[in-house]
């Protein structure tokens, strides 16, 4: 791993001659303004030198006066981030597709097309990815002057085509409602007998327009909104957001607050991995493991509840600090819980590495080489199980991760069994880190004062969530509301893995393969539109939703 400065210098020299201007907004970032026509050359230069991976593609509407849209291609290498800034006109703007170099760019580019109306040339599939198929043409929800509520009312009810035989291909649909999926997503697997010969994915069934909503609420309100992006890694989202806003405001949380944030993040990682262990085992037909791991997950959930009062959205972080302190009673409860968790995790680690029946379904499934994983731009445990050491907590430690360092867990086998092993070892590592934090919890205040208005600027906040790197891009304009918040969750980068590895696999191996990346649909979808086939579409107002909630829960 090269140092941040070396990496940035290398990137600068690789991009020499292509940039129309460079800037270093933060010590670890390099911004390069380039023309759309030079985009392919720039990404090829970086990719050719194996410099970084495409973290995401952020679209920013610069407003009516400027009449431009900025497409930001963020590439990360360790702590260093290079942003290629491409400006295109608001109407009729076009950028070339970088899909050939970065396979996961397909999803980002489709998002850019439907959200901003920028044409991406060279993309084979240009259909909607997040928005409904019947979304009105020419309405782009993330443009500042689009009335999203009015657009949602115009959505045409389109019946999805019956996915039966396509020529001589036999299609097995999985989702949006399917026993294998706990959240809605739609996959179509073309099968020949038991062999899968093709795979497609369609998301957006729980798209909630959170990025747009963030622009309409103030920074404090957004904290609670981002926490609700995901129901499992809620703390990760809130923390990625808080870290970004604190960086913009030039405020630093106290060491004690940061340590408590890390403590909750570690607990969250354990319960997330336990949840995943159960789900993934169940997909492969191992029901007993599901029941056991979910039972033991309660230990962590109880600890979190005792500490924060909540089991799902703990609201641990606030802007400038944390909401609660860790008392000695909490510390004792955590230590007690961790003793049990450690014992159970070692047991599960033994099961997933030695049980013959289990390994017959997990070993050699979805094997990915190091190079392949890197080229696909995978993230999180899926990537680390393929032998690539990439973990934001290690590469770019944020918060108190410098004080309480974490070891990256890597396995070189690259199959489903390795993904089980890596996650269980990460849980063990989290137990170790939780103990060191409790031993060395710094004294100090819980919060520092935070300004209501955030000075103009932009920042990038990366956070290692249980599923992989979370990427937040936050742009402020000097008011109390952000100009743009871009959320990129790890699941969306890992879809490409499922689509590529499902082809050639047996149908029976597809559910465990799919679960292997620990997909989180709500995370990457982020309704107010309800689709009732026979009654047309209906848009519920906030008041109606509130009334429904009250009547529904009244006894």
């Amino acid at each position, binding site marked *: 791993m090269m140092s941040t400065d070396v990496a940035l210098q290398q990137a600068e020299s690789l991009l020499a001659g292509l940039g129309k201007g460079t800037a270093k907004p933060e010590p670890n970032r390099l911004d390069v303004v380039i023309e759309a026509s030079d985009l392919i050359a720039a990404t090829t230069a970086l990719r050719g030198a194996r410099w970084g991976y495409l973290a995401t593609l952020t679209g920013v509407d610069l407003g009516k006066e400027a009449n431009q849209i900025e497409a930001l291609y963020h590439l990360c290498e360790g702590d260093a981030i290079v942003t290629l800034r491409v400006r295109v006109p608001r109407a009729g703007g076009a950028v070339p597709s970088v899909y050939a170099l970065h396979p996961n760019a397909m999803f980002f580019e489709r998002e850019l097309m439907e959200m901003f109306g920028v044409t991406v040339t060279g993309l084979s599939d240009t259909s909607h990815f997040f928005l409904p198929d019947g979304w009105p043409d020419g309405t782009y929800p993330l443009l500042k002057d689009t009335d999203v509520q009015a657009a949602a009312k115009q959505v045409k009810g389109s019946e999805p085509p019956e996915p039966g035989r396509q020529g001589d291909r036999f299609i097995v649909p999985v989702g949006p409602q399917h026993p*294998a999926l706990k959240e809605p997503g739609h996959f179509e697997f073309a099968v020949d007998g038991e062999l899968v010969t093709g795979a497609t994915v369609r998301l957006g069934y729980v798209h909630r327009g959170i990025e747009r909503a963030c622009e309409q609420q103030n920074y404090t309100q957004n904290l609670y909104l981002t926490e609700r992006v995901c129901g499992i890694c809620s703390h990760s989202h809130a923390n990625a957001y808080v870290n970004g806003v604190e960086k913009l405001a030039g405020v630093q949380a106290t060491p004690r607050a940061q340590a408590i944030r890390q403590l909750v993040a570690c607990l969250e990682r354990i319960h997330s991995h336990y949840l995943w262990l159960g789900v993934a085992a169940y997909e492969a037909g191992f029901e007993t493991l599901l*029941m056991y791991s979910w039972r033991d997950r309660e230990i962590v959930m109880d600890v979190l509840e005792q500490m924060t009062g909540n089991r799902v959205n703990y609201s641990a972080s606030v802007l400038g600090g944390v909401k609660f302190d860790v008392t000695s009673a909490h510390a004792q409860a955590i230590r007690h819980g961790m003793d049990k968790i450690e014992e159970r995790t070692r047991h599960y680690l033994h099961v997933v590495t030695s049980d013959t029946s289990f390994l017959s379904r997990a070993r050699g499934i979805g094997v990915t080489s190091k190079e392949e994983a890197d080229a696909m731009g995978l993230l999180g445990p899926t990537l680390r199980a393929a032998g690539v050491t990439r973990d934001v907590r290690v590469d770019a430690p944020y918060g108190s991760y410098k004080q309480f360092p974490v070891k990256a867990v890597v396995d070189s086998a690259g199959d489903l069994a390795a993904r089980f092993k890596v996650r269980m070892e990460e849980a063990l590592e989290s137990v170790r880190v939780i103990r060191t934090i409790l031993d060395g919890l710094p004294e100090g205040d819980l919060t520092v004062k935070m300004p209501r208005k955030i000075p103009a600027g932009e920042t990038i906040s990366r956070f290692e969530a249980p599923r992989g790197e979370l990427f937040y891009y936050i742009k402020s304009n000097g008011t109390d509301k952000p100009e743009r918040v871009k959320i990129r969750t790890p699941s969306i980068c890992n879809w490409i893995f499922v689509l590529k590895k499902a082809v050639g696999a047996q149908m029976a191996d597809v559910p465990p393969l799919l679960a292997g990346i620990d997909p989180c649909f709500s995370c990457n979808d982020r309704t107010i539109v309800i689709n009732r086939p026979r009654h047309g579409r209906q848009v519920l107002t906030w008041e109606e939703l509130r009334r429904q909630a009250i009547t529904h829960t009244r006894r």
Partner: protein
Amino acid sequence: MRALINLLFFPGGLFLIVLALAYEYADRKVIARFESRIGPRWFQTLADIVKLLVKEEITPATAHPILFGVLPVVALSGALTAALYVPLLGFRPALSFPGDLVVTLYLLSLLTMSIGIAGWNSTSRFTMMGATRALTQLFSYEAPFMLALLGPAVVAESWQISEIVATNRGAWILLTQPFGFVVALIGLMGKLEMPPFDAPKAKTEIVAGALTEYSGRGLGLFHLGKEIELVVGLTLIAALYMGGIANPIEFFGKTLFLLMILCCLHAVLTRLRIDQTVGLWWRYGAVVVLAQWLVLIAWKGIVA
């Protein structure tokens, strides 16, 4: 009159259904405890059947309606008829004739055949895949399973269940034919699509397999048929391999013991892929049973 009682109350009909529900309850409860769950209440299995029987049945537009309605009845009647030839709870079989063992084995296969045809008739993608898997699995375990159950018959030199039991005079054949016993027991798991052989109805892949389109009465009858087949299968294995007809309590204990073995295997094993199932049966199941047959033939022809 006696035939009517045989059919309606004992050993067929009512008694058999109560027995089947009791076995199902034991099965579900034990597995739940293994999985650290509480498990069903004592009347849950009956409540499930009653609920299914009173629910509306929806026939898919593309399915043949008569076939769709008749198949569950065929499946159930196959299992019920098979029960007439086996010594339930150690009592003398209601009906008996030379060769009834072979007929019973075929009647037991009727259920799987019905499920296969039902899946094909429902014309949904999940049911088609489920039907293909159910029939593929049938062709893999059927031959070893039959050979395993015919082992004791060869020793007794008869194809009639009551005569086999009488000739063997309480001998525990499982001591002399251990491979046959194991294959028969695991074959029964395959027949009943119990985990790890539940690929034909793997919910995370193909929803409910061949029976996805069935609801209400049809599903209830298929379900009941399967539970009765469990009773018949366990009775047959206990009678042929574990000392034949005994007093009802002792016999009930034997079948419960067998059920516990099935539950343990269910709880500790992961679902097998269909290619693994086929491989398991033809590479190991068939080979060990055939090896045992060679020994049997050699014994009968040379030594005895």
